[in-house]
């Protein structure tokens, strides 16, 4: 009996209009239980054309939690030079973090939102890619941080195309929570360093 595949709905945005960054991104790809590589190189399963991107920049690795029945995913940084911002944390080479139901990722000017819709198959999973013309990651709301009174003016991820203050919005994500009702990972205030430029 075939089991439904886990689906990763991946939205991608790059601020440069009309760029060839996503020229090699297919609408959908089915991948086995090995890590999915994201990068500039020909071996990358999600291949992005950006000079500043490492050939292997990051991986999305499926695994099973002990006692779990659905695939979980962890994101690992494979770039020695760059870093990756994930749900408020800046990760560097060889650092990794488990992903939740909805995840905001930024690297080398790329904004990526990954939504995981769990299936029961352990053989493979599917990535569905959507290219977004508008930015995906906005500035955090003050009440979503611990510092209600003195929130430093935090810039959005560089390269997000939001130069003017009136474009800085609260975190009203254009995405809806996943139907499974899995909790969204609370975002932490972390400096958005050069990893996002």
């Amino acid at each position: 009996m075939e089991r439904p595949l886990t689906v990763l709905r991946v939205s991608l945005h790059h601020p440069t209009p009309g760029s060839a960054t996503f020229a090699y991104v297919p609408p959908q790809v089915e991948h086995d239980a090995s890590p999915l590589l994201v990068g500039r190189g020909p071996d990358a399963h999600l291949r992005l054309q950006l000079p500043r991107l490492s050939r292997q920049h990051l991986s999305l690795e499926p695994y099973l939690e002990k006692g779990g029945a659905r695939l979980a995913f962890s994101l690992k940084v494979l770039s020695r030079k760059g870093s990756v911002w994930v749900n408020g944390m800046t990760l560097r080479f060889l650092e990794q973090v488990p992903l939740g139901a909805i995840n905001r990722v930024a690297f080398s000017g790329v904004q990526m939102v990954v939504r995981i819709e769990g299936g029961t198959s352990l053989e493979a999973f599917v990535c569905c890619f959507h290219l977004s013309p508008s930015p995906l990651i906005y500035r955090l709301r003050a009440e979503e941080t611990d510092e209600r009174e003195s929130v430093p003016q935090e810039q959005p991820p560089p390269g997000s195309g939001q130069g003017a203050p009136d474009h800085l919005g609260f975190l009203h994500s254009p995405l809806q929570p996943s139907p499974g009702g899995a909790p969204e990972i609370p975002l932490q205030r972390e400096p958005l360093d050069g990893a996002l430029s």
Partner: protein
Amino acid sequence: MSSFEDVDTEETVTSLHMTLYHPGHQRSGIFQSIKFCNRETLPTSEVVKFGRNSSTCRYTFQDKQVSRVQFSLQLFKKFDSSVVSFEIKNMSKKTNLLVDDKELSYLNKMDLPDKCLIRFGDYQFLVEKEDGESLEFFEIQFFLSIRPLLQENKWLPQKPTPECGSCSPCSTQNNSPMEAGENEW
């Protein structure tokens, strides 16, 4: 100015020593693909696979009872740590993997303790890690044990007797090959 003074500062590398045991290894040649005592340097980004399939696995065992990919090891760096750690993942749908007393099913993974015993089927692997500074490379070295590494359900950190006649010295980390008697521990 001499080149010694100019070259980049050397970094120590993380070393993984794996002592392998299988009761039938001499009879069946299951470890014939493994270069014992040979220090091999690998990039830290590599996912090191162990299994029967030589196309996908870096280290293979000539045994049809071994899965095509049995398990994998990969390095990662914990936050706020300067050293790398290993993670082990069971890649076999048929055989569970035991890491000390913890059992991993298919696609389960866990941090690998610095010293531990990995078991699947009749295979026993004693794994010992030495920390190093380098984030670029790590070393792996295999030794063969002619004695079981697990005795009476509790594994004993015996010093194995390396079987690698061509290399000299070929020893464990303490550089003194010793044959552990059965009653020494």
